[in-house]
């Protein structure tokens, strides 16, 4: 079941009715049943994995919490009798037990994710390496593994919870079914956002009165998400697929067109899907974390990553970047850099290394392909390089007397960042690393300007009418984004307008989605991030 299928909306109507009509204390149970029904309809064969993840993490976290409680109780009860050394021993022993449980649960769950997602990739590469060294021609072992829906998202979300409980950020949820709801809450399961327990759980468990205004806001956000997905992304994807799947037929000019369409498609698809997910949660009175903040208005690549797939970025920051940057080993690296390269480098180098690791993981998270790895590294390297070169830029700006406060400089930074983001998309979207490099080479060495004017563009899978629709829809998207960038909250803004204006806007939006929806060409094509 996908957000784009009519069955889903029927299911949602039934669930919402049950949610608000049943006694309030049953609301979270209703959501849990609904979430599992949704999951079962999406892929009943793989439901065992999410149940296993839920069970293992729940058991692990409850044990970790119990050990902690037992330790605290012991320390309080025998407060007077215990020497500082015994107290330390009790703490050390408790931590040791917790650590064992923590690592077991962590490794098992990441192991499942890794096995399901990367086994074929590893087998292929190991066999390739073996064949290369032995000159054999053995085919790789492949397992017909089914990737459970949303495994990357629910594994990361529940791992974040495990780490937080282990670090004592909050106590473990003792009710298995309530925890199961946190893991499986259906709007987030397909493509995120990756929510945090402390932000989401209470909202899931507490009762909600029907709030018509919030309900309307939720519906509006769903409509906006569908507008982005069905009118923009599902049109742009035709051009993207054509250019990237037949990259050797086009020169650099058309390749750039493909890249720009991919920028548009990916943003409209992913942020559209997230808007739908957040909007659906709002129908139940639940606020989920935002995942996008107009990323293409970023003035640097690191800012882009704070505005794009925000919940993945913050997950990486909290659970990989900081733990890595603050390790003793990294601190030693910092000291060495400080000694030989100066004070500034002493600070920058550990951050740069941690960033590289984070983006390598981000790349691998996206999929078991070398081009994703290259894309992750590309981002890490650019950000690390920018951090290292920062003093030079400051010096250059001072020498050239650049006014950094004016609009043109701001615009320049946005365009510069957009350029680097798009350079990265070569690696992200291409069908292989070889294809990425080929396309990059073509862009520089074989531009074929004539392909931009000889009608080739009109043979990329879109009709002239579709280009016009795409243009107008993109202008609307840009206008809304500019308004948001200037601090205008669109839904509040709309609610302040006269009824006639408000309704006209909504009717136009609904009718546009119905009449200009391009997804019916490929009904089974869901959201692109659903595959992760």
């Amino acid at each position: 079941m996908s957000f784009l299928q009519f069955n889903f909306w029927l299911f949602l109507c039934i669930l919402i009715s049950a949610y608000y009509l049943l006694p309030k204390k049953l609301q979270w149970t209703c959501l849990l049943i609904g979430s599992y029904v949704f999951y079962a309809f999406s892929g009943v064969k793989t439901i065992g994995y999410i149940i296993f993840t839920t069970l293992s993490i729940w058991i692990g976290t409850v044990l970790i919490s119990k050990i902690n409680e037992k330790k605290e109780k012991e320390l309080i009860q025998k407060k007077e009798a215990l020497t500082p050394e015994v107290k330390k021993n009790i703490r050390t022993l408790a931590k040791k037990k917790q650590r064992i449980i923590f690592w077991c649960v962590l490794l098992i769950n990441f192991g499942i994710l890794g096995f399901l997602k990367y086994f074929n990739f590893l087998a292929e590469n190991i066999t390739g390496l073996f064949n290369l060294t032995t000159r054999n021609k053995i085919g790789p072992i492949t397992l017909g593994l089914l990737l459970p829906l949303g495994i990357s998202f629910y594994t990361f979300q529940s791992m974040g919870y495990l780490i937080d409980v282990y670090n004592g950020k909050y106590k473990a949820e003792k009710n298995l079914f309530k925890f199961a709801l946190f893991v499986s809450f259906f709007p987030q399961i397909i493509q995120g956002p990756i929510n945090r327990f402390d932000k989401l759980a209470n909202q899931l468990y507490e009762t909600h009165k029907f709030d018509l205004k919030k309900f309307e806001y939720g519906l509006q956000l769903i409509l906006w998400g569908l507008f982005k997905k069905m009118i923009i992304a599902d049109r742009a994807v035709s051009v993207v697929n054509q250019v990237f799947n037949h990259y050797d037929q086009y020169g650099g000019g058309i390749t750039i067109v493909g890249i720009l369409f991919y920028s548009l498609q990916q943003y409209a698809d992913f942020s559209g899907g997230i808007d739908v997910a957040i909007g659906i949660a709002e129908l139940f009175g639940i606020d989920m974390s935002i995942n996008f903040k107009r990323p293409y208005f970023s003035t640097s690549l690191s800012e882009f990553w704070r505005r794009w797939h925000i919940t993945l970025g913050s997950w990486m920051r909290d659970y990989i970047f900081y733990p890595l940057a603050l390790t003793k080993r990294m601190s030693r690296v910092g000291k060495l850099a400080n000694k030989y390269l100066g004070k500034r480098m002493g600070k920058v180098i550990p951050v740069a290394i941690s960033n590289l690791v984070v983006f390598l993981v981000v790349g691998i998270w996206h999929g078991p392909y070398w081009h994703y790895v290259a894309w992750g590294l590309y981002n890490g390297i650019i950000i690390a390089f920018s951090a290292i070169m920062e003093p030079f830029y400051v010096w250059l700006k001072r020498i050239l007397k650049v006014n950094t406060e004016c609009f043109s400089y701001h615009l320049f930074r946005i365009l510069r960042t957009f350029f680097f983001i798009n350079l990265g998309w070569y690696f992200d979207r291409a069908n292989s690393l070889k294809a990425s490099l080929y396309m990059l080479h073509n862009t520089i060495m074989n531009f074929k300007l004539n392909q931009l004017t000889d009608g080739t563009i009109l043979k990329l899978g879109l009709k002239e009418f579709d280009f016009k629709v795409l243009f107008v829809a993109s202008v609307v998207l840009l206008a809304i984004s500019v308004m948001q960038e200037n601090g205008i909250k669109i839904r509040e803004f709309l609610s302040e307008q006269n009824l006639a204006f408000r309704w006209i806007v909504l009717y136009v939006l609904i009718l546009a989605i119905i009449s200009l929806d391009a997804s019916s060409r490929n009904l089974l094509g869901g959201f692109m991030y659903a595959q992760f």
Partner: protein
Amino acid sequence: MHNSKAPWFRAIIFVIVFIMINYVLTFVVVPKGDISRMTMREMYSQAENIDVVFAGASLSQRDINPYIMDKELGCKTFDYPFDYQMFIGTYYSLKELFDYQKPKLVVVTTEQTNFTTKGEKPIVYLSTAPYMKSFFNEVQYYFAASAQDGSYLDRLFPWRGYHVASIQDLVKNIYGKLDPSYTNYPQSGQVEAFANNKSGYIGKGAIKVNPSDSKGTINYDNLKSSHDNRNISDIQEQNVEYLKKISELCKANNCKLILLSPPAPVYQVLRVKNYFEFDNEIAKIAKNLNIEYYDYNLIKPELFRLKGDYFSDGEHLNSQGAESFSESLANFLKLRQKGEDMSKYFYTPEEYNADINYIAITWYKFTKNGNEVTLTADSIHGTKVTPEYQFVLTDLETGKQQIIRDYDKNPTFVFDSTAHKKYNIRVNARVAGSNNNDSIRYYEEAISK
């Protein structure tokens, strides 16, 4: 009104206005109803009960002339087909019919793709459901058909599938829909006036195709085709399920049901390697469902002699063919009614194949390697026929024709095209050893550099 109720009131009004907008758009944008609407309305308006119904899709619409059937059978018959309709649509259309008519016999025409299709096109629903009187039936049909292909929106918002070419078209459409002859169809004399048409809609759900019209008779030359193999595992359970429902519906209404494959051009039968194997599978399915099934392609000449020029295209009969077929079918139904063993009127596949002693169509494919062109001819013919091919080149610059290879059983020929820039190649095919020029089939294509 109390303030707390105002938002609810607004929300309800919002939805009502939206439904009204949808109705207005449907009225303005969707072209005014066509033959399906007329058929449905005629069915409702029949003063006398319809005794025999011919349901299905365009095969019934074009192949069966209800006026001839009326005359031959001496009872009231009616064509009740809808373009592109599959068993699912036929089921819901018949459900509607049984609320107003009590036929004694329903003949559902079919073709093999009715069993393999994965869903019915939304246009079928849109051209029938809006004219059904039973809202409940319409809703059931909506959900059942949409569940098959997921096209819920296409069926819910009919206007979304239409492209508005100009404002004038919209205005014309509105005027057309407001015209009393449209809104009150069928008024007295309207159907009778159609009945005199030489081509087009003739009333009672039937369409006539005049053989002398430009597209009234199929041309078997220059007809590129291919060999096909129909996979029995491609039969969709959902189609069998709806055929079963049709059977149960008829049974519940004390009505006999016949499943009938009307005649198709010979090449359409022979091009499918396992046509008869598939046909047997349909017969098995029908038998399991207690439905009589007949494939009229196998009918013996004593009941129907199929002629090539009976067809207007690769599937449908023209009016000449329909006339002949209708007379034959009426005779067939009468014999059946008398209790005769109808199986004796049908060929076995072997007999059918043996009866085809000619080449139905021919064509060729080519590959180029520099100036070297490899031509590979192919044809569809009876199993006992051995074809031979001749290749003729027409130089488009000089207009000169030359035989580049005379008749030979080898379908492949390689020739050097160095001397020609723009040219056509024609392949002539005949039964090996035959000198009858009338039985030659050909296919011609431009092969330019």
